[in-house]
């Protein structure tokens, strides 16, 4: 059985895993982390890359350990171990989803710290187009708060939320594959500017009190995941916490068990400066919508499918693995960088071959395109209907029912949906 490849994107950092063969386990991992996968095309840039074998390691080490010296990273626990040099290396992990999940937490705690970010013991909640972070250890009320949020899809995590400072100096919070008792949420690769950090406490009445950067830093330090020992790691953590606490307003958020989440959000800043999501983020959100609702809509740009599809048309996409020659299929073609990702809607020219390879073409283009589903690209669905100037028509036969059910699909605007 050939090795299997995953690219996981968490907190805006991409980890590439070439996994040893183990029947059925790869599919299990793909299903568990599907919202955080990037099509593992060989040209996609990675922040780190690991070859991973499945076996137990270092029996006896109960607490995870991480050592970082320059470009060398060594992480281990009784059930996993990995060594990387300048972002490339080998490792082994017990073939168990909980071991792999812990392994990911330790890896990302190291690599986020190297990139100005952190995994924080925190509930993360999207409020509008921003996020609020609620840090706290066990029993602080993170899951209770998450359960009170009316829109389940607005919960980024109830347990561990990745945050990172981007190149423009904005703090961003991300969806997380790491959940507590809440279970899990839909997830995507979308990042949200942080509007506030609010430490939940139990109080007799709703109370929101601002915190000094020093006070907020001290509290944050208790909630940042860090498995490295020593002064250098402590210094790095302190810098991250101090920066976050200085640059994002921080509060103590006192609530009762019956305080509605909305009442709390009204008392907190919930609008960070606007940020336009990147291509990869938007496409991953579309994938999440297709997964949760089975359908979505996008506004097309470009002219590769004229006259059937024109720029400005609304395309209704249905999630389905069943596509036939002649269908207009929607697929994710990753770029070398996230900004190079494309959502393409082109016509299927030949049936999928035994290796999962598709052959597509834009109606006005002279060249064919191919991709292997699950490797060089990801099939998201097919375009079943199109709306232009208020009139909707099917692109495939017998879809009157689909048109009715797609009428309320959320519309996602993509800058370069078609080319």
């Amino acid at each position, binding site marked *: 059985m050939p090795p299997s490849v995953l690219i996981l994107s968490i907190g805006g950092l991409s980890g590439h895993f070439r996994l040893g063969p183990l029947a059925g386990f790869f599919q299990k991992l793909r299903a568990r982390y599907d919202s955080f996968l990037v099509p593992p095309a060989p040209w996609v840039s990675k922040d780190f890359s690991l070859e991973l074998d499945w076996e137990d390691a270092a029996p006896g080490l109960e607490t995870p350990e991480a050592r970082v010296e320059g470009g060398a990273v060594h992480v281990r626990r009784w059930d996993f171990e990995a060594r990387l040099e300048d972002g490339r290396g080998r490792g082994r992990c017990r073939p168990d989803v909980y071991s792999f999940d812990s392994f990911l937490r330790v890896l990302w705690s190291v690599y986020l710290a190297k990139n100005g970010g952190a995994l924080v013991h925190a509930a993360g909640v999207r409020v509008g187009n921003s996020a609020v972070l609620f840090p706290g250890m066990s029993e602080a009320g993170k899951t209770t708060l998450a359960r009170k949020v009316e829109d389940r899809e607005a919960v980024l995590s109830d347990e561990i939320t990745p945050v990172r400072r981007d190149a423009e100096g904005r703090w961003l919070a991300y969806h997380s594959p790491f959940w507590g008792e809440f279970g899990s949420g839909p997830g995507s690769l979308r990042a949200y500017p942080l509007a506030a950090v609010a430490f939940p406490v139990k109080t007799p009445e709703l109370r929101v009190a601002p915190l*000094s950067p*020093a*006070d907020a830093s*001290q509290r944050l*330090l208790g909630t940042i995941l860090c498995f490295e020992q020593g002064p250098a790691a402590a210094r790095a953590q302190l810098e991250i916490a*101090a920066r976050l606490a*200085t640059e994002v307003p921080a509060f103590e958020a006192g609530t009762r068990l019956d305080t509605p989440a909305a009442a709390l959000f009204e008392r907190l800043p919930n609008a960070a400066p606007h940020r336009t999501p990147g291509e990869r983020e938007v496409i991953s959100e579309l994938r999440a919508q297709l997964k949760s609702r089975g359908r979505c809509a996008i506004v097309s740009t470009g002219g590769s499918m004229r006259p059937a599809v024109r720029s400005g048309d609304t395309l209704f996409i249905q999630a389905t693995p069943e596509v036939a020659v002649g269908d207009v299929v929607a697929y994710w073609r990753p770029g070398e960088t996230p900004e190079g990702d494309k959502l393409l809607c082109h016509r299927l020219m030949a049936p999928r071959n035994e290796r999962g390879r598709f052959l597509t073409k834009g109606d006005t283009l002279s060249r064919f395109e191919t991709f292997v589903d699950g490797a060089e690209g990801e099939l998201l669905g097919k375009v079943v209907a199109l709306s232009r100037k208020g009139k909707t028509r099917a692109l495939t036969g017998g879809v009157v029912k689909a048109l009715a059910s797609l009428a309320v699909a959320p519309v996602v605007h993509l800058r370069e949906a078609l080319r």
Partner: protein
Amino acid sequence: MNVQRVEGLPFQKLGEQVLVVVPKTREVHLLNETASRLWDLLERPSTVPALLDTLSAEYELDAGAEADLKEILAEMAAKGLIA
């Protein structure tokens, strides 16, 4: 007797306060304004009389200042911040 910051402790000044991390115990200490000023002064070895001299030029100290200073220094030493 000289006192000084324990060498190598990560710290961050935030406004009038200082956060100090003791990696060995993984404790994080938030120093108030007075302790933060002492932290500044203890970048180099100093003595209680010298510290009192400096502080009396910056603050109005009362008769109990020496005892208070020794108490703060003892607390900082107990937390592993100075030696």
